[in-house]
């Protein structure tokens, strides 16, 4: 077990290194840097001014060396501001340049760098944004897991019944609906003052405000309400629900055809008891893995949903960083994403071994 864990951690670190280097390399391509210089300083700079600006701000060195600086294994660059003569450098505090700076300041030292789009440190941005996304994900999981498990178990309990057919088609339909489609449809149906349900409800006197829900979740950052948070949560949850339900159904139908279930039924145990006591435990092993592996997919949905509903969380930040070629923020985002992906894989593997005594790692 320990060797397995060590190997997995080794792979994780190697993956993280490769990925961050790819992101670093792609964001540090020459055209991207020129665009960065123009957005940071002035859009009307000449080619040589751009070059000077890049050199002055430490972008002039070779990519590998600067990647090492970001990582914290190569000393950070130092230089002088050409106008004021104040010291500049990777480790120098831009607001307080005269204090003595550390030699190394990279990810290994816990310095995530500085965001050029938000003009603030990456670690503070990431922590607030991740918190916002965490709340979203929490509600998504609270909604998604019970619904999908119940749907999957109910439809897998009697394979081929009419209920099973109906629920299966519904699950397939949700997996065929990407977030940008379901979000658009939900907004139009439930949050438009002129279309969908809201005008009808208003006409019947059941609704007093303009619309049932809000089409923007921007206010949910301050406090979450039913009106401003329902639609984003449902939008993210919908895509995953169908998939998990399908997997639960498959596992449930497999268990229901097992010998011990038939024995129990023939012994005269009630169908309800068979499902709840005999089948459920064994049928829930596979969905656990699926749920864990679904979390990285949710991350994708979160990016789309946060953009659509203007909820300023991690996904929204990632889009802003990518559009502004914000190198260090993007690196931070990709590190977080990679850790989420690999950690959920690890948890699902360990959980699978733990839940299923037939599998043992030699």
């Amino acid at each position, binding site marked *: 077990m320990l060797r397995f864990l060590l190997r997995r951690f080794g792979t994780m670190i190697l993956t993280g290194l490769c990925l961050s280097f790819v992101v670093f390399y*792609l*964001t540090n391509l020459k055209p991207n840097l020129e665009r960065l210089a123009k957005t940071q300083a002035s859009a009307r700079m000449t080619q040589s001014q751009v070059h000077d600006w890049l050199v002055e701000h430490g972008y002039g060195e070779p990519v590998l060396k600067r990647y090492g600086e970001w990582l914290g294994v190569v000393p950070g660059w130092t230089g002088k501001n050409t106008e004021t003569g104040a010291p500049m450098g990777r480790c120098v505090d831009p607001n307080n340049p005269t204090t003595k700076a550390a030699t190394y300041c990279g990810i290994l030292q816990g310095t995530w760098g500085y965001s050029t789009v938000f003009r603030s440190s990456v670690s503070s941005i990431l922590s607030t944004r991740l918190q916002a996304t965490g709340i979203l994900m929490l509600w998504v999981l609270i909604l998604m897991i019970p619904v999908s498990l119940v749907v999957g178990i109910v439809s897998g309990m009697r394979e081929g019944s009419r209920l099973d057919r109906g629920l299966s088609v519904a699950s397939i339909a949700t997996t065929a609906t990407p977030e940008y*489609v379901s979000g658009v449809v939900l907004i139009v149906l439930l949050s438009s003052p*002129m279309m969908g349900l809201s005008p009808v409800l208003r006409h019947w006197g059941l609704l007093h405000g303009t*619309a049932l829900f809000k089409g923007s979740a921007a206010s949910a950052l301050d406090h979450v309400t039913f009106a401003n948070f329902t639609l984003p949560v449902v939008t993210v949850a919908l895509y995953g629900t169908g998939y998990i339900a399908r997997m639960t159904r498959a596992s449930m139908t497999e268990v229901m055809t097992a010998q011990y279930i038939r024995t129990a039924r023939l012994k005269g145990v009630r169908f309800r008891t068979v499902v709840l006591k005999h089948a459920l435990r064994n049928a829930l092993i596979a969905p656990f893995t699926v749920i864990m592996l679904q979390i990285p997919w949710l991350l994708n949905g979160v990016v789309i949903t946060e953009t659509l509903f203007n909820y300023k969380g991690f996904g929204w930040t*990632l889009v802003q960083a990518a559009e502004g070629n914000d190198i260090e923020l993007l690196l931070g985002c990709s590190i977080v994403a990679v850790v989420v992906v690999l950690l959920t894989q690890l948890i699902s593997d360990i959980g699978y071994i733990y839940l299923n005594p037939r599998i043992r790692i030699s």
Partner: protein
Amino acid sequence: MTHLSASAVLGELLYRFLPVWIALFLTFALSIAYKRRLGLYGRIFDSPIGMVGFFLVMFWAYAAIFAGMIMTHDPLEQVYRLKDALPGTKMPAGTKGYPYYLLGGDHLARDVFSRMVAGAREVLIIAPAATVFAYMVGITLGLPAGYYAGRFDTVLSFVANLVLAFPVILLFYLLVTPAIRQVGIPVGLAAVLFLFPVIFLTILWNSRYFTVPWKRNLYVGLTLVIGLWAYSGLAFNADPLGVFAMDSNLLNVFVSVVFVNAPTVFRIVRGLTFDIKSRDYVAAAQTRGEGPWYIMLWEILPNARGPLIVDFCLRIGYTTILLGTLGFFGLGVSPESPDWGSTINAGRKLLSIYPWPAVVPAVALLSLVLGLNLLADGLREESLRD
């Protein structure tokens, strides 16, 4: 009368799709009549779910083929007075052509209906083609990885997992920005990825016919001539005759979609090969002294076709979703392109006031992907039956 009523709009829409209905009727009538002789394809018609899925898929396929006949307006034509027009609005006096904007106008006063139909053509060309390329890459690498295992497999699996660990949207942003194009990374990726179909087909013919030289030379020669000709045109835009060409924007989108899909296909093929290589018929082929590529391509691959066909259907749907995602973030083929993702993106800004420009392509995309998923489900059920 300046407006059509809702039922009149519906009637007109059904009428516009007349060529599609005729083609669908013929397809279904012929297929059901001969379904016992059509193998797996015929068995779709035994499963109601598969039939519904096939109906939806073929509806959009025929809509894409007959797009020229179905469209009521040019997808880029702007009629100033019809900006954000309601569905069923009559064209202002003095304009020629079809008299209505059946599904309304968008924020640039273009016909939403025609754009949706034009978008179907765009999506149904790119998505299946990208999926085929992803399959070629996945199969050519996945078969040896599963067959030989060992270090080759370890390295490739690591790379595949690396690509899969990337958040898709970040990858798209990194690969589809204009800056990247200047550096030539998409062309480089295309140069690698587009080579795989040629390699695949060459090995395929060679491993089978190397004992019959004239046949081998004919097939391999044809593959190499046509393949490399297309390759030069598609990847480098350097086709001397100008038959094969790809817009650089399109190339960008295409390459990144193939790049995202290929690792998953690789993993599926590798897993299947792992499973199949211990079967008796593989051992028999090995004893006969067949070459490894013959065994992989002509013994293992045909026997893995069931799950691969199912996954192929699902993957076209997933590719459609990915293309939509690209469009949604404004990274699509071009800003005025009628593809569904871009139109949803353009329409979402005024969603609660003028919903139709976004909802129409959204429903179109949903129905196509749903059709593909239902078709895949039907196929899976039918192929599991024996």
